[in-house]
């Protein structure tokens, strides 16, 4: 009997090892959207469309949910992680240190009073904007015109090391602290509230998405998506159908993941 129990246990271990790691609510793979000659970095789902930063070709594109391009916005110098707020797309322009906005097809340039050095991610929410400042290892927070600097270079709690993405949700700043291989959470005063994922062997945490219930982070080199609840508990890992994931966008129970090396978008649903 002991032998059977042992074999069953081994079988169970093998079975769970072959599947996506299920701890909480499961995400199922739906399909792969192929992109032609595009290595996507930033991604924003917008109803029946996807906004994609195509850094390789210096442009932002809008596609339908099959990956067909419906609109191109050229001459944007290495666009990175995007933000969508009130039908306006915000694009950090990595090479010029500017923020580009796209509204109803119109492109404008927004110059920041506090200049970043290689802006890699942006989040806009009401009257607040946060910019991930890659080479200065900090977040620039602009709240009603006032600038607050969040974080500094380092590896301790409250310090950042090449941050690549940021999300503003419920008066908190969630940072993809890429080369510290973790997520950090700050309040608007710059106080470090939480460190998430530092024990989960993330290998370059490039992109972040935060919903009402979950925190999603891409593990670029590890080819994984790690999903946490808002208490920082790891509840689900996706480790299939990914190829160097850089960003995540969740919309209407679907999760879209940009695969930088795979030239594709992976779609999952709950």
């Amino acid at each position, binding site marked *: 009997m002991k032998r059977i129990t042992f074999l069953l246990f081994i079988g169970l271990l093998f079975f769970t090892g072959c599947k996506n790691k299920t701890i909480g609510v499961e995400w199922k793979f739906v399909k792969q959207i192929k992109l032609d000659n595009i290595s996507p970095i930033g991604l924003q789902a917008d109803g029946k469309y996807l906004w994609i930063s195509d850094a390789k070709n210096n442009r932002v594109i809008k596609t339908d949910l099959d990956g067909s391009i419906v609109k191109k916005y050229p001459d944007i110098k290495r666009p990175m992680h995007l933000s969508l707020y009130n039908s306006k797309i915000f694009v950090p322009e990595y*090479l010029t240190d500017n923020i580009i906005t796209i509204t109803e097809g119109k492109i404008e340039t927004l110059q920041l009073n506090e200049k970043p050095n*290689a802006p890699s991610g942006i989040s806009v929410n009401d009257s607040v904007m946060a910019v991930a400042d890659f*080479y200065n290892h900090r977040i620039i927070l602009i709240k009603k015109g006032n600038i607050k600097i969040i974080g500094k270079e380092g590896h301790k709690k409250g310090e950042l090391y090449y941050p690549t993405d940021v999300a503003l949700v419920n008066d908190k700043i969630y940072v993809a602290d890429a080369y510290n291989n973790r997520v950090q959470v700050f309040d608007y005063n710059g106080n470090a509230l939480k460190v998430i994922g530092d024990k989960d062997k993330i290998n370059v945490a490039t992109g972040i998405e935060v919903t009402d219930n979950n925190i999603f982070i891409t593990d*670029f080199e590890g080819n994984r998506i790690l999903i946490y609840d808002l208490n920082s508990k790891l509840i689900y890992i996706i480790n299939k159908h990914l190829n160097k994931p850089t960003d995540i966008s969740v919309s209407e129970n679907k999760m879209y993941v940009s695969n*930088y090396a795979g030239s594709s978008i992976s779609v999952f649903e709950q």
Partner: protein
Amino acid sequence: MKRIKYILLLFILLGVSSSFAQDKEVKIRVDGLSCPFCAYGLEKKLNDIEGVENIHIDFEKGLVTLNIVGSQKISEDEIKSKVEEAGFTPKKIEISDFKKTSTKTIK
């Protein structure tokens, strides 16, 4: 006489244009270029160098190639400094032009 002047002028023009044709090709070998934020960051830093054009980064090979156009002088130290600013250590830098090739391995 006019014909001689014309030929002389032609030679001068040819000489001037060839003296400006000092385009150089630079090859830099760097480890750890897989992340696009790092690779485009390196591109951004190298763009600061005067006369730099056609930066190409091969992620898989860890090879950066670029051209320096016109009569701009370029030193290996300047390139090394920009690569380090981007957060990398250059393994090897090669600068070549039409006449000679200089190769320096960074240890």
